[in-house]
């Protein structure tokens, strides 16, 4: 699409784009003015519903519909902005916050106005240190200019935004894990229902939205639902920030209409696969989503088409490219280690399954794999998650998907690896290593050193 005009990232390269004067000089806060002075909240909800904006945080749930689930007779509503962005290879929210924080604040104002929330908590992962500093300044600027606080723009609408920092846990990106963490507890996702719209933060109706979702809202208010629906593919409308990283010449974040193909993204925007090589595996939207193989690269990266080759979904649209020198074993080892590290430990299938699969992958990688391990891993993966109905949250589905995809798409390569990598080595756990070296066995060493079934 040659005539596509970026909107979410349009200010990114303007000097001082993070300041209020620059944002206002580029037309900023006009949508907030328009909505607060000429529209009523339900009209904003209806407009967003009409635009069919789908959540950008991973699940793709229609945003306007989510807002309309709030009970009509509610007295108090909270808004939580999900800026925990921890899905590996994803960094678009960081850029949105660092380079155009006022666009997000305007989106929050509109979202809160529509849902009648007068307190918004922006939950930002701790590692976004610069983004946090920039946001704190931007919130103060917006408050001083009267865009936050009491009786905003004379509309009678009040709003405070508080930036709340996380502490390095992936699971706090799950919306109810986020809420628990916000309340000062461990970030354990809650059993749903009740959904946050009915009972969320501090037991009050709560909306959780991703940063990019809210950044779309000012543009929808300004240009209308038809404009939004003129971009993208059926059921996946609007602009999207795609991240590209891994084995490409240019690791970047680009704004494109939803539905660009993986091939175009790599060839045109990522500058091609590095070292003149070919792509072997492409992760479409964070590692939870599974992967595309070299002959599936013409798949459109939108909410619908991406499922055809068996991926879990669009996720965060963070594309990781692996060249043809990459071993599937290294990829699986890395992803399974991530989920074993990040499982919150509440549900047995996830806690034990993620750890078991990781240890198995470690053994396979080390040259002690057995063909039957592949069946065991697939069995474990197929039985953990919300879809089989065995876990509280979707982390387990995400953890299972790379394994499921690998068994469906690249099993021969795994079998080949196992057959050709029989080192005959004994697997030694970190605990055994520590004892052998005469070191103190620290508790965290013990917890990761449960014995694994291991006959060579």
């Amino acid at each position: 699409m040659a005539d596509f005009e970026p909107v979410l990232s349009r200010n990114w390269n303007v000097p001082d784009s993070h300041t209020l004067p620059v944002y206002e000089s580029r037309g900023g806060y006009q949508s907030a003015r328009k909505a607060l002075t000429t529209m009523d909240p339900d009209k904003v909800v209806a407009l967003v519903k009409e635009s069919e904006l789908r959540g950008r945080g991973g699940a793709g749930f229609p945003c306007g519909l989510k807002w309309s689930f709030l009970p009509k007779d509610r007295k108090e509503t909270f808004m939580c902005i999900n800026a925990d962005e921890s899905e590996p290879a994803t960094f678009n929210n960081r850029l949105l916050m660092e380079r155009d924080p006022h666009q997000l604040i305007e989106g929050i104002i509109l979202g809160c106005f529509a849902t009648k929330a007068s307190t918004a908590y922006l939950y930002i992962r701790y590692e976004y240190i610069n983004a946090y500093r920039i946001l704190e300044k931007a919130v103060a600027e917006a408050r001083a200019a009267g865009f936050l606080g009491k009786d905003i723009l004379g509309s009678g609408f009040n709003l405070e935004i508080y930036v709340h920092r996380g502490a390095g846990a992936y699971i706090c990106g799950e919306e109810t894990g986020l809420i628990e963490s916000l309340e000062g507890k461990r970030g354990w996702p809650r059993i749903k229902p009740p959904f946050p719209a009915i009972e969320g933060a501090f037991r009050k109706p709560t909306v959780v939205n991703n940063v990019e979702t809210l950044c779309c809202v000012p543009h929808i208010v300004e240009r209308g639902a038809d404009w939004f629906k003129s971009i993208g593919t059926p059921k996946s409308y609007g602009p999207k920030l795609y991240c590209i990283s891994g084995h490409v010449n240019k690791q970047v974040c680009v704004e494109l209409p939803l539905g660009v193909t993986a091939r175009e993204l790599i060839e045109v925007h990522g500058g091609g696969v590095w070292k003149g090589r070919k792509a072997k595996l492409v992760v479409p939207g964070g590692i939870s989503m599974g992967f595309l193989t070299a002959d599936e690269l013409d798949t459109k990266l939108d909410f619908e088409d991406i499922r055809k080759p068996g991926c879990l979904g669009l996720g965060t649209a963070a594309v990781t490219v692996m060249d043809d020198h990459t071993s599937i074993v290294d990829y699986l080892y890395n992803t399974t280690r991530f989920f074993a590290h990040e499982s919150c430990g509440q549900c047995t299938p996830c806690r034990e399954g993620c750890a078991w699969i990781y240890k198995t992958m470690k053994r396979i990688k080390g040259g002690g794999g057995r063909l039957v391990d592949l069946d065991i891993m697939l069995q474990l993966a197929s039985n953990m998650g919300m879809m089989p109905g065995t876990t509280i949250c979707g982390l387990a589905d995400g953890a299972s998907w790379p394994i499921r995809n690998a068994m469906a798409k690249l099993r021969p390569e795994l079998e080949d690896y196992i057959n050709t990598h029989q080192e005959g080595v004994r697997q030694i756990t970190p605990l055994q290593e520590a004892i052998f070296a005469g070191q103190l066995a620290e508790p965290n060493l013990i917890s990761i050193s449960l014995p694994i079934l291991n006959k060579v």
Partner: protein
Amino acid sequence: MAQTAEKPVMLSEAVREKIRAYIPRYPSKRAVTLPALHIVHEHLRCVPFKAMEEIAEILEITPAEVHDTMSFYGFFPQAPIGETRLWMCRSISCMLTGGEELLAHTCQKLGIRAGETTADGKLTVEFAECLGICDFAPAALADDGRIFGPLDEAKVDAMLGELKRGPSLPS
């Protein structure tokens, strides 16, 4: 639960004031747990058990509740860490571009293992899962906000030299 005069306190009045300033933001005092842990961590470079007791007192919850939350996040050390904390990413995009080897190189160069602090107390090096700076992969992040990447061995050496000069103040 009044504070007796002779009981030694760990958190200064200034720190307590900083924590209390967060209370009006939330409908429950317990929600200030994470902000309080961060404030204490910033001042002491760790969160000892005594500090958790004092946080609990300010927030009118039990020390066990503070400890429960604190221990869930692998973020708060019990003993002081180095002047600068460095996270090196080991997740997918950094792994693909050499992140794991660079972490090994860093540890070898400093003579420590991941998670440890150099003998001069200047630098703590930890592995991290995706830091959200994959456009700099393979990447590392210092806890003063400095981002390093894309790294190679020479750039790691330069980075370590820079980090040893101490944290950079926020602008």
